[in-house]
Structure formats: C-alpha cells, structure tokens
C-alpha cells in the first residue's frame, strides 16, 4: 500500500500525550520500587518522593493534553472524534473528558494522585510513609497501564487515548481517511446527548473521588500487614475513611438523584448492577469505619478492620471489572462496552487479592510457598487451560489461609465481649453491613456465576433485592439507635433500657400509629404480601427509633453541641433515607390507571395491568385526583416535549388549572429514543410522569402523513365488520385456491384470499384482497392497501378450531388524531429521603472534622 501524505494532522501533541502516559507508568513503577526499598533503606526516600511527584506531573500532563485536544477540536484523534464535536456547548467539555473508558480511568488516576500527594505530606518521616505510598504507587502502576495501549505478543495492554483515528482498529478503513486532507473534512461524533446535563458534570468526579478514597484505608491496612504493626494506623486512617464514606455516599446518591430526575427508571434506585457496584464498597467502608472506631476506643477488632478495609477496595476493583468488561451483557442498561481489557481487569482483581493474602501471612515460609504456588498455578492455567478449576483451587486455598492467618497472627481478646457493650453492637452492625454487601454482590454477580459454572440463571429483579434487604435494614436501624446508649466495655442492662426507653416508647407509638393504617388498612387492594407487610411496619418503626434515639442522644448526652454530633446527625440522616425510601417505594401509587385493560394479574403477581393511560390530543380525562389534557407536542433540538395540563376539581365541580408537566422523549442519535420524565415537586409528594409511547414526527409533510401507524388486530369470520376511522370494512368472503387435501398432496403452496369490502360514510365502495400464503409450511402474509382511504390490511392468521381469521388494519397517519401513552406515579414523602441524604453528608462531614481535630491534638501532644 502506498503511503498517503496527510495534511494538517497535529502529530506532536499526540506524541506528547503518549509520552506522558509512558512517563506516568515508568515513574509509578520507579516510585513503587523505591518506596519498597525505602522500607528498609531510608536514603531512598528522597528519590521515591521525587518519582511519585514525576508521576503526578505526568498524570496532570496527560489530562492537560487531552483537554487541549478536546478544546481545540483535534478530530484526527479518536478520543476527540468519538466524544466531542464542534457544535457542542463548551460547558460539557468535562463530560466529554470522562465519557470514554480511558477518560474515566484517567479521572480515577488523577484523584489517586491528589490523595497520594496529600497523604505523602501527612505521613512524611513516619513509619507509614514508605509502605502506604508503596501500595499507592502499585495501584498507580496498574491504572497507568490501562492507558498504555501497547501490545505484548497478542495481548493488548491498556487503551491509548492518543491514537489517531486512522490508527484505530474501528476506524482505520473508513473512506474519508483515504484522502490526504481528511482532517479539514472531519467533525466529531459528539457527546451522548443523554449525558449533557449538570449531573454528568458533577456525578462522575464525586463518585471517582469516592472510589479513590477507599484506597487510603486499603493502603494503610496492607502497610500494617507489611510492617507487622496492626495497631498503629487506625487513628490516622479514620478521618480518611469517614471522608470516603462521605464522598462515596454523596456520589451514589447523586447517581440516584440523576436517575430519578433524568432517566426513566421509574424511581431513584433500580438495583442496576452499576448502581450496586458503587453501593457495595460503600457498605463495606462504612463497616470498616465503625470497626476502626471500636479499635480506637477499646482496642480489638483488628482482623475485622484489616479485612474490611482491604475488602472495600477489592470490591471497587471487582466493580470496575463487572461494569467495564462487558460480562454483564444484557443485565445492565448502562455498563461500558468491552474495550478488550477483560483479561487485564481480571488479572488486576486477582493480583490484589493475591497480594492481600500474601501480606496477611506473616510466616515467611508459608508466604513464600503461597507466592510460589500461586505463580505456578497461574502459569499452569496459561499453558494448559483448566482455568476455572485452577481458579477454584486457588480461591479455596486462599480463603483457607485467610482463616489460618486470623487464628494464628492476630492478637485475641482475653475475655469475651459483654452483650451490653457498645463495641459488641457496633461490631454486629458492621457484620450486618458486610453481609448485606456480600448478598448484593452475589446477586449482581449472577452473570459471572453463570459463566463460571455454566448456569443459565437470570439476574434477580429489584423486588428480590428489596425483600432480602428488609430484615437487614431493620436490624441495622435497631443497632444504630441503641448502640450509642451503651458504653464501651460494659453497661448495666437496667440503665441501658432506661435510657433508650424514651425513644423506644415514642417510636413504638408513632411508628405503629402511622404504619398500621398505612399498610394494613385497605391492603386488600394493594396486595402486599404478609412478609413485606410485617417488615414494612418493623422498618418504619425501627427507622423512627433511630431518628428519636439519635436526637435524644444528641440533646441529652451531647447537650446539643453540633461539633460533637457528627455521628448522631449522620445516623439521623441515614434513618431518614431508609424511611423516605420505604414510604416512597412501598406507597408509590400509579395515577395512570388503565381502566380499559382486561385483568392480566391472573398470570401472576408480576403482571400489572394498571400502568398506562392513553391521552388523545384535546380530550380531558380523569387521572388520579386530577383531570388531565394532552395539549400537544413541541420540538426543541432533539427533544420532543409533550405538554400535559393538570386540573383539579374546583368549587362547583368546575376544573381549575393546577400545573403543566412536559415529559419528553429524546431522539438520541446514539442510543435511540429515550424518555425523560417530568416531575411536579410538592413538599409531601412528587407527581412523576413519563411518556412511554408517542408519535415523534413533527412534520405534516406528505411522507409522514402517508406513512402507516401501528396495526390493530381483528379476529372474526366472513360477514363480520372491521371498523376503520373512515369506513366500515366487511369481510365479504374467504377463498382458498385449493382444498386442504390438494395442498397436502401437491405439498407446495396454498393461497387463501380475504375479500374485504370497505364502505365509506358517503357510501363509496372499495375492495382489498390481502392474502395468506403457506409455502413449504411457512406462512407469508401478503398485504393489500386501499390507497384512497389510507387503509392497509394484513391477513396473517387462520384459527381452524374457532373457524376465525385474523386480519390487521393499519391506517395512514393522516387518518388518526395525535395521542400519547403516559405513565404517572405519585411518590409520597420522597423529600424525606433527600433531606436524609443532606443530613447524612453534613453529619459525616462534621465527624471528619472532629476526627481530624482529635488527630491533631494527639500528634501535638506526642511531639
């Protein structure tokens, strides 16, 4: 192939970007190596710190180059081409940056660098600096390699964001790239319009900062194993862990808010694998934070703290694998596509599990044996296959060694924990969190389990998650409410019950008084199962218990001081989130009741026949407490808005205008049509609507008016009448070209013709002859059209037993009136949930500040 001399390509900047990628990788590697050596030889510290700073500069360099390229529209680069275009508003440039996999890895790397630099400063000259930064650097080595885009043999390592379009395997042979001046002809594909909103500018960076921050307790825990000092790191890591709880929590809730406001999930939480995989690390890091507090105040819980801190980060890695390897396939609506990095992601997850187990084994003989055998197994898997078997053997033996390490290396408490002690209840709470996290992980991993064991299980539906989480949440609520009233070590049972009696009595009275009428009365209509009924009432009451108990503790024990009440406020927030989620989900009511439908609930509880309402333009219909009118649609850009007016029955039954909602459908060139809800917010409820079906075409052009709308089906026999909007169509006769016997004999083809006679209101008569053809046992319907009336018939089915035929009728768009199909729900008290989110964030923030203050005070004393 002759080489083309391309005009106008800006080669240098891409090379600069790739240089930074290489530099960041090499510097991270050097930093890892030198911090490792610095654990023993302190004269390497200076070099190690410089290496980490060079890595930091390189990462910022990559980001800067990518931004310059996006900002100046260098479409000859694949990343810029795929994620931006000229027409796009510049305020979305950040979203372009992290829309792709490479960009989101970069975001993660960036936050790790920021946290690493701060941590390095904080830990300077301590025994923790070298091992913690060593772990940080190692993670950075792996993350930086995700951008390398180099081949070793057939294995591709990472995906380089600085590839030219003509170098990229998906694009290199598109025609426009054959012309030398292609650069001037290009415009980018642009950002996915669904992501063009403010949530996408703030949600990913928050979430990724949350993911990054789980690295800090992980690095400390591994450093502790490395240093054989299990005791000394918790006080330094605690503020970081609380920070992680705060940021990751806010990130997840932002995702929920985005789903509620802008996506048509029909709620704020859908147990989607992508949502779950950010929730699970959060649950575990919360558990870790609490065992750290136990350890700090009373000692003990050493193994659990290490285990949780390590597991949380490993679950972040596992989530990355789940959502980015394409393994979820059909199970998730918004996982990334496979970039061919599945193998690499699996390798990373396994490497860090391996590393954690290896460091856990303090006996050097056992450790070396484990390392050697693991590496041998890995080679065996590469060379001979049996990957699943080897993975199984390795996993089981690693698990066995973890249990062994727990018994052998970790100091045990001499005496048993008291039942009435704060540490026991907090510990129990942490275990419940861990257990819920494991169950959610198990459910989310069904596609992985299918792959591993050759099963064909379907991923569980949201209600399965809800039902499983109910008892755990009740348990958590009771523990959170009561634990603060217990002292560390031992509390007298009588005093304890006396102290919680106030909150307990209040919540029992309020809880039962509210929840029993809410759930039991009128339940014949709602059909809540007994299991759910009991747990709704229990959860309602126990969540109130948490709220009251923490208020009580805040005011009677902490004397209302805000600075010390971080935990109480965060716990109140958490209980309100639970309460808001419970009420708004369990009492979610469908306003758009479909009165016309036949009942399909006989098919099972999963079938719900009251979902949608048809609104014809101009007509007014009752819907829930409202009267609604569909006014019409309008188009703005690629969004189609459907304006629906809501009226309330006013005085003397005259409808009074209340408000207008305009749910929309985005005609997204990349993802197809996606509905966007519109919600009316009240203090105590939300009216949430979205259009599930609507005709999008705005044009009154001939092409549109002459197109046919959806078919209606008619079942009947000769002599029956089909009603069209502009004519009565009589089935005149049904004729076959041969008898059944002849057909079986000749075994070739039978043609059955329906003679249809359409009579208009002006008594004009038209005929149509749709045919039902069986050829070699395959049915091929042949349509027929009455053009002057805009009617199309398909004769598609014969039911010999009933003696009926089925014919569908579609009419030209010009025949019909405009309509939409709408779903409308009422979410009661969903604001309780959002208030809870804000309180939890504030409370955790206060706790971070307080812990930092305490840490400073301690450090001050010791220096």
């Amino acid at each position, binding site marked *: 192939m002759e080489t083309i001399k391309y005009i106008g390509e800006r080669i240098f900047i891409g090379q600069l970007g790739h240089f930074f990628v290489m530099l960041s990788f090499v510097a991270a590697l050097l930093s890892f190596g030198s911090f490792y050596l610095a654990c023993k030889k302190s004269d390497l510290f200076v070099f190690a710190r410089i290496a980490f700073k060079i890595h930091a500069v390189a990462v910022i360099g990559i980001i800067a180059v990518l931004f310059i390229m996006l900002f100046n529209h260098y479409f000859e680069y694949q990343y810029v081409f795929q994620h931006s275009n000229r027409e796009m508003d510049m305020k979305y440039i950040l979203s372009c940056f992290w829309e792709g996999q490479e960009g989101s890895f970069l975001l993660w790397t960036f936050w790790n660098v920021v946290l690493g630099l701060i941590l390095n400063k904080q830990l300077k000259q301590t025994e923790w600096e070298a091992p913690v930064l060593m772990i940080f650097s190692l993670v950075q080595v792996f993350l930086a390699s995700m951008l390398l885009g180099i081949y070793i043999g057939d294995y591709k390592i990472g995906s380089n964001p600085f590839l030219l379009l003509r170098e990229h395997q998906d694009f290199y042979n598109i025609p426009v790239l054959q012309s030398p001046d292609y650069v001037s002809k290009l415009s980018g594909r642009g950002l996915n319009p669904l992501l063009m909103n403010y949530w996408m500018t703030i949600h990913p960076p928050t979430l990724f900062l949350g993911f990054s921050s789980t690295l800090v307790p992980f690095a400390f825990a591994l450093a502790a194993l490395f240093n054989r000092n299990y005791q000394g790191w918790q006080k330094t890591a605690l503020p970081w862990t609380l920070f992680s709880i705060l940021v990751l929590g806010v990130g997840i809730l932002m995702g929920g808010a985005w789903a509620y406001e802008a996506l048509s999930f029909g709620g704020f939480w859908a147990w989607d694998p992508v949502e779950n995989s950010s929730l699970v690390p959060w649950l575990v890091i919360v558990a870790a934070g609490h065992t750290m507090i136990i350890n700090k105040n009373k000692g003990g819980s050493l193994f659990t703290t290490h285990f949780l801190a390590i597991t949380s980060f490993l679950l972040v890695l596992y989530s990355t694998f789940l959502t980015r390897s394409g393994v979820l396939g059909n199970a998730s609506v918004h996982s990334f596509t496979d970039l061919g990095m599945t193998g690499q992601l699996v390798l990373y997850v396994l490497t860090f599990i391996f590393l954690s187990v290896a460091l856990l084994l303090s006996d050097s003989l056992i450790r070396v044996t484990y390392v050697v055998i693991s590496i041998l197994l890995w080679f065996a898997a590469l060379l001979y296959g049996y990957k699943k078997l080897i993975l199984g053997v390795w996993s089981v033996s690693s698990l066995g060694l973890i249990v062994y390490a727990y018994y052998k290396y970790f100091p045990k408490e001499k005496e048993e*924990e008291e039942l009435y002690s704060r540490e026991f209840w907090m510990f129990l709470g942490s275990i419940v969190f861990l257990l819920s996290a494991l169950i959610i992980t198990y459910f989310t991993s069904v596609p992985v389990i299918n792959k591993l064991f050759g*099963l064909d*299980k379907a991923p569980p539906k949201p209600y399965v998650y809800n039902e499983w989480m109910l008892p755990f949440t009740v348990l958590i609520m009771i523990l959170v409410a009561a634990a603060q009233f217990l002292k560390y070590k031992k509390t007298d049972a009588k005093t304890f019950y006396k102290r919680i009696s106030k909150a307990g009595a209040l919540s029992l009275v309020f809880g039962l008084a509210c929840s029993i009428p809410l759930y039991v009365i009128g339940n014949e209509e709602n059909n809540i199962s007994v299991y759910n009924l009991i747990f709704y009432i229990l959860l309602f009451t126990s969540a109130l218990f948490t709220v009251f108990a923490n208020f009580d503790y805040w005011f009677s024990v902490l004397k209302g001081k805000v600075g010390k009440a971080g935990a109480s406020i965060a716990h109140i927030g958490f209980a309100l989130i639970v309460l808001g989620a419970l009420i708004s989900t369990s009492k979610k009511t469908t306003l758009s009741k479909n009165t016309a439908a036949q009942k399909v609930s006989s098919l099972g509880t999963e079938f719900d026949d009251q979902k*949608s309402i048809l609104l014809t333009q101009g007509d007014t219909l009752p819907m829930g407490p409202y009267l609604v009118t569909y006014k019409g649609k309008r188009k703005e850009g690629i969004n189609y808005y459907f304006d629906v007016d809501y009226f309330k029955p006013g005085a003397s039954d005259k409808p009074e205008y209340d408000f207008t909602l305009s749910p929309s459908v985005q005609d997204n060139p990349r993802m197809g049509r996606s509905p966007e809800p519109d919600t009316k917010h009240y203090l105590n409820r939300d009216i949430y609507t979205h259009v599930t079906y609507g005709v999008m075409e705005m044009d009154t052009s001939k092409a549109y008016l002459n197109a046919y709308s959806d078919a*209606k089906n008619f079942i009947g026999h000769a002599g029956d009448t089909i009603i069209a909007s502009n004519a009565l169509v009589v089935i005149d006769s049904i004729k076959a070209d041969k008898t059944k016997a002849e057909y079986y004999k000749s075994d070739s083809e039978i043609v059955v013709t329906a003679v249809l006679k359409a009579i208009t209101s002006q008594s004009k008569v038209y005929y149509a002859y749709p045919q039902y053809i069986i050829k070699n046992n395959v049915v091929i319907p042949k349509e027929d059209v009455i053009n002057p009336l805009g009617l199309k018939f398909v004769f598609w089915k014969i039911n010999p037993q009933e003696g009926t035929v089925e014919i569908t009728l579609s009419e030209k768009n010009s025949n019909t009136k405009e309509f939409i199909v709408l779903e409308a729900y009422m979410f009661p008290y969903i604001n309780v949930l959002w208030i809870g989110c804000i309180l939890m964030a504030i409370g955790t923030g206060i706790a971070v500040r307080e812990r930092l203050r305490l840490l400073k005070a301690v450090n001050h004393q010791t220096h």
Partner: protein
Amino acid sequence: MKKLHIVGLLIIAVAIGVIFISLNNTSSYADFSKAANNPEDEFHVVGKLDKTQPQIYEPQINPDEFSFTMTDNNGLAKRVVLHKSKPQDFEKSEQIVLIGKMKSDVFHANDILMKCPSKYNDGKNQLN
C-alpha cells in the same frame, strides 16, 4: 462458646440460605419450548423480532398490550403478548430478552429488554 462465634455461624447460615433460596427461586434463561413445558414458571427468553409477522398495538383499546412474533435462539417462532406499552425503537432492536410465562402457545411477557445497535456502543458504522 463465644458470642462472636455464634455471629460467625449465623453469617454462614444466612449465606448458605441466600444461595440455596436464590438458586431455587430465580428465573433462568430458556427457550420457548422449555417455557412451554413449564407454564407456571417465569423465564427469560432471548431471541429476535420476526419482522414478517404483524406487530399489533391498539392503545385506544389497551395501552398496556402489545403483541408481536419473536424467534428464539433455536429458531422457534412464537406469538408474544407484552403487557406493557409498545417500547420506543422497537423495530430497531437487534436482540430481545423477554421476561414472562408461556400460556397456551402464547408467551406473556411482563417485561422486555432490548439491545439496540447503538446503545452505549462506541463502535462502527456511525460515521456519516
């Protein structure tokens, strides 16, 4: 026996319970013939839309009923009644996953997942 050991045993019991119950209760992927043999059980059936057969949607009569014909991965075509409104972009779907039960030769679906060619796909054929 320590309290913590009791906690540990409880965890193991719950974990085994979860695995056992979920293996028995969750629906699984199947084809139409398996669904037809077990009319009481819910299945996920994967297949493709049969475009030669009519798609019927009459929102004036019932906005929550849409019927079409799907061919499963074994090539068996069955009539499907989806008890929901007609999904957007239905015609463009490359692959369909139906969730529901088979009753007297008709598959009644309570939910549908569609794979559309461009959904989150940064791939090919989108240059214009």
